[in-house]
């Protein structure tokens, strides 16, 4: 609401229902609309419709609902609709455990729809305070880049309680690093330039611009066309408007990277909370351990992985998702390790045991269901 959101469409799902409920209470009081949809696919389409009409729209769900966003998400990418989508990760696959945190959506939010030929912007807060900040930022980026932006949260963030500090004045908002962008309407007729430019207003219907938007490959004006050249131009824009302006999106937190740490722990979202405590305590014990926490997880912040070290990716999944990106981004002679847990945060004690093993050169080999090798 700080970002000017005035339309929210949702479908009840644990653990994102609280967001829908809060919006149903608060939006009407400021003249905004809460819409409850017949399913998640409709929810995101309703939000798209509101955005197409010039509103600032949002929707929120969890994994089993996010897969139903696949259809509208692709449409919103292709038509360049500014929109904010929140995915609160629970434990999967399928319905899994509803009221517990997971991080199995890491790649799902990178590839939220079919067809490829696009980049996505995904922000992953690790606290209630940061969730507020990143939601405001998501609205800002969605306007500048004309694309849906996903907030990748998890059950602990959307279901938990924390004290937060809410800014009241413009100075306070600025001091917190909040950025804002008003909605403008593209005047036409060339709604879809084949360039990597950002800060182009999106298509808005109902304002007399003779706008065109569709699920088909567009010409620059938005007519449907099926030529390899037109599709290539459109893809170039979908990919490079984001890749070439990554600096505007990137944000992260790092800790103790300046003294060539032996281990660099990588974690995002709520998993990073216990990791941070564990790393700080390990430092107190004299262990040379650092931490990288991507906040913008997509595009993945390759540039943070400059040091040769033993990298340890700590994730709330067993299959090892972010670790694949770490392996790709880290210098070639780095060791890459994985610690996975799901439904609960790794404890500080478990992390310390893992650090000790890695420091003494032991492998994190795993046997059986409780401990498997990545």
């Amino acid at each position, binding site marked *: 609401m700080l970002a000017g959101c005035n339309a929210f469409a949702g479908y009840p799902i644990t653990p994102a229902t609280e967001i829908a409920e809060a919006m149903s209470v608060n939006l009407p009081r400021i003249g905004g609309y809460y819409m409850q949809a017949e399913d998640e696919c409709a929810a995101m389409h309703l939000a798209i419709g509101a955005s197409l009409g010039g509103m600032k729209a949002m929707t929120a769900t969890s994994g089993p609902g996010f897969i139903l966003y696949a259809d509208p998400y692709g449409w919103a990418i292709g038509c360049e609709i500014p929109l904010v989508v929140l995915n609160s990760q629970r434990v999967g696959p399928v319905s899994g455990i509803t*009221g*517990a945190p997971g991080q199995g959506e890491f790649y799902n939010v990178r590839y939220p729809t079919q067809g490829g030929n696009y980049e996505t912007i995904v922000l992953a807060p690790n606290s209630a305070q940061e969730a507020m900040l990143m939601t405001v930022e998501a609205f800002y980026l969605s306007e500048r880049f004309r694309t849906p932006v996903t907030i990748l949260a998890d*059950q602990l963030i959307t279901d*938990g309680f924390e004290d937060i500090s809410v800014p009241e004045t413009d100075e306070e908002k600025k001091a917190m690093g909040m950025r804002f962008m008003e909605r403008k309407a593209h005047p036409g007729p060339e709604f879809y330039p084949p360039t990597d430019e950002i800060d182009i207003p999106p298509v808005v219907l109902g304002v007399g611009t003779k706008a065109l938007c569709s699920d088909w490959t567009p010409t620059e004006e938005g007519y449907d066309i099926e030529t390899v050249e037109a599709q290539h131009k459109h893809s170039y824009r979908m990919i490079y408007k984001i890749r070439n302006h990554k600096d505007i999106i990137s944000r992260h937190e790092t800790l103790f990277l300046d003294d060539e740490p032996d281990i660099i722990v990588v974690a995002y979202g709520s998993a990073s*909370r*216990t990791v941070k405590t564990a790393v700080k305590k390990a430092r107190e014990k004299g262990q040379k351990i650092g931490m990288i926490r991507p906040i913008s997880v997509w595009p993945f912040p390759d540039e943070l992985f400059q040091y040769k070290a033993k990298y340890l990716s700590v994730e709330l999944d067993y299959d090892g998702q972010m670790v694949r990106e770490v392996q790709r981004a880290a210098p070639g002679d780095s060791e890459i390790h994985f610690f996975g847990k799901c*439904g609960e945060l790794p*404890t500080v*004690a478990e992390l310390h045991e893992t650090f000790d093993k890695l420091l003494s050169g032991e492998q994190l080999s795993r046997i059986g269901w409780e401990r498997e090798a990545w």
Partner: protein
Amino acid sequence: MKDRIEILASGFGGQGVVRLGQIVGTAAVNQGFRVTMLKSHGTEQRGGYVRTQVVLSKEEIDSPLVEDPDFFCSFSSAAYKQFGHMMKDGVVLYDPAMVEIDESKPFRQIAVPAKDMAIEKLGRPIYANIIMLGALSAAACEILDKENMLATMLSIIPKFKDENRNAFEIGYGMVTS
């Protein structure tokens, strides 16, 4: 005071475990603490397993996990079995109607017959969690202010104020420091 205080409550859905954590967390915020509270629950429905973890600190809290509880409110035997092993030098508050404790444990364990007292004194078992809250408030009186806790509880549960106030006082009276 320690640099962080960890409070754990666990039982079944419908026992008011999450509500208890929410009241404690909000009371602590009102007292100027930084607070995190996690809740985990097995299903959307009542009757499933529920846990809430509250951490209080004067500083920003990184890990929101309770790994070394200062206070553990146990509403079921299953909860006691699952989380009792984490206890080092904290206090367990348990309802003897629901929980059979291991008396050989070295830490302090206080019986809070919340369910029986709720039925006996207030006529309905639903006040048991507020009796437990009162007991917790007494056990943690050096950290959490009693009047603030009571006021916070009454603001979060605006119905049946007299009954809830009585329940809180009954629980508070069960614990002597």
